């Protein structure tokens, strides 16, 4: 059965033909049936959700309009602060912590009439590509439960794929929305850096993190972007411009658009994935777009730059988990011993590894060789993208080099896991928007995602292309 979209849900609830309470119960029934197996959530907030849904129905009955997301069920990644509701980042160090405020996106979604179903599982502090690094156990891919949902927003992707919620919110630092979207066969958007307020998003790497939606359809993603984008004075990196209007772009088609094929893209994608990408180019050409060859020579250095910049920023951001203001504490006779014991007990293996590499890259004597160089590579990548976007309106690549992989298949080799993000990382380094749209099936009949990349604030053209691909995939 095709899941009901956010657009249809809101239209139905606003007109009174659909009750928010009934919509919610359909989702909760699916959660009851499959969540024990999938583990998409760290917490299901069913009581609060029922109260909200009832309130929305009451407002509709009273002649009020609850907003553009009236009655739409939403799952929130558990690194988004929700006042009075536990927010863990899937880490022991924050277990039991209840934030004293809501993230801006949470406020905006609530004001638009959304119903929050729960907080979704992630790789601890969003560090990972499989959701295997959660302190509370992995999430399973609803399409094949022997496989990972991707990560780090694996719980959000799985929640949408299993229709536990109509849409979900995630965060993307190096691919953490797009890659799980691809592996779970849903739409995932990483907006332009600064387009969506990060106030209340627990920071991982501040020059890279962005919040974005997971949805079943491109139109739903556009609707969500219209609600969550736009300036917020509480985030000093927020771009001072109003919310994006994207649904109006969807019917415009791709006639005359130039679709870039990166001829020097790093190799390594599976044949089935590349076949889906080729089919996507052909589909857009058939709709009147032209395919142009471009080069992005520094693309291949993105991985190294990312694994220096992101851990460096993380080592600084995660210094706040010191057992003083929130979360757990391991008692010790003095503060230094307390910090070190608390952090050793509270952080998982991958988080420690990244704190270590980041601290090393920033330390005296190594700063220029590592972090300083990484920042210069960022500039090279930005310059190469600028040249490519002089010839092309958007660029297409695979989202992930493979389909969903099996649990434990990356073994104890961190680099093997890092390679999952080869195609998604460069856009984070330069702050551009990118999204993954399901397009066909690859190895083992599992879904493939095509990544559409666009220049800064290029969401309108990116969504036009996404809508065209979605149409062609039907």
């Amino acid at each position, binding site marked *: 059965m095709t899941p009901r979209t956010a657009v249809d849900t809101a239209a139905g609830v606003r007109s009174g033909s659909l009750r928010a309470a009934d919509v919610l119960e359909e989702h909760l029934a699916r959660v009851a049936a499959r969540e024990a197996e999938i583990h998409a959530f760290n917490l299901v907030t069913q009581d609060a959700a029922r109260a909200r849904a009832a309130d929305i129905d009451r407002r509709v009955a009273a002649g009020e309009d609850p907003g553009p997301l009236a009655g739409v069920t939403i799952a929130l990644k558990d690194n988004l602060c929700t006042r009075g509701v536990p927010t863990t980042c899937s880490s022991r160090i924050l277990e039991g912590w209840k934030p004293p405020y809501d993230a801006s996106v949470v406020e905006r979604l609530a004001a638009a009439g959304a119903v929050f179903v729960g907080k979704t599982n992630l790789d601890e502090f969003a560090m990972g590509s499989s959701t295997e690094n959660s302190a509370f156990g992995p999430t399973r891919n609803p399409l094949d439960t022997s496989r990972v949902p991707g990560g780090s927003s694996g719980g959000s992707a799985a929640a949408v794929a299993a229709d536990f919620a109509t849409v979900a919110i995630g965060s993307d630092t190096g691919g953490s929305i797009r890659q799980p979207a691809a592996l779970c066969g849903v739409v995932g958007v990483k907006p332009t850096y600064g387009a969506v307020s990060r106030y209340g998003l627990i920071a991982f790497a501040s020059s890279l993190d962005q919040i974005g939606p997971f949805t079943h359809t491109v139109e739903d993603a556009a609707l969500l972007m219209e609600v969550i984008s736009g300036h917020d004075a509480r985030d000093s990196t927020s771009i001072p411009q109003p919310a994006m209007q994207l649904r109006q772009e969807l019917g415009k088609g791709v006639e005359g658009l130039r679709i870039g094929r990166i001829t020097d893209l790093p190799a390594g994608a599976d044949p089935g994935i590349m076949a889906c990408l080729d089919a996507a180019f052909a589909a857009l050409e058939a709709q009147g777009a032209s395919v142009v060859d471009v080069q992005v020579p520094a693309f291949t250095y993105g991985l*190294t730059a990312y*694994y220096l910049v992101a851990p460096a920023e993380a080592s600084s951001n995660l210094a706040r988990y010191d057992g003083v*203001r929130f979360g757990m504490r391991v008692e010790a006779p003095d503060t230094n*011993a307390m910090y*070190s014991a608390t952090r050793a007990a509270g952080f998982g293996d991958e988080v420690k590894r990244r704190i270590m590499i980041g601290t090393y890259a920033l330390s005296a004597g190594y700063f220029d060789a*590592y972090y300083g160089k990484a920042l210069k590579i960022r500039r090279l990548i930005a310059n190469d993208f600028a040249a490519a976007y002089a010839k092309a309106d958007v660029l297409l690549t695979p989202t992930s080099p493979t389909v969903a992989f099996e649990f434990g298949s990356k073994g104890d080799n*961190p680099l093997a896991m890092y390679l999952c993000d080869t195609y998604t990382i460069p856009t984070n380094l330069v702050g551009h928007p990118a999204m993954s749209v399901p397009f066909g099936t690859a190895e083992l009949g599992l879904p493939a995602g095509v990544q559409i990349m666009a220049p*800064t604030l290029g969401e309108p053209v990116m969504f036009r292309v996404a809508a065209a691909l979605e149409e062609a995939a039907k």
Partner: protein
Amino acid sequence: MSVHITKVDVAKVAKLARLDMSEADLDRYTEQLAKMLDHFEDIDALDLSGVEPMSQPFPLVNVMRPDVEQPTLDRDEVLAMAPAAEQHRFRVPSILGIDL
């Protein structure tokens, strides 16, 4: 750059990062970090002279707000989430090796 990270380096980094580590942890992280740093040597081939570093993707500078009072977080709600609080403050163990 061919820097070879040693166990002594890793122990120093762990101390800087305030992470207690066992000998076994140090051995494992030394091996894993060395592998990563080897992989990162791909950038050694690049000529980066004259390239301006890029620290953030969308440069906004001097983001100011009007200097007017605004609501703040609720003090009691914040302190209720701390591992230890006393007299409206966060309580920590001894900081100077002297228990006052």
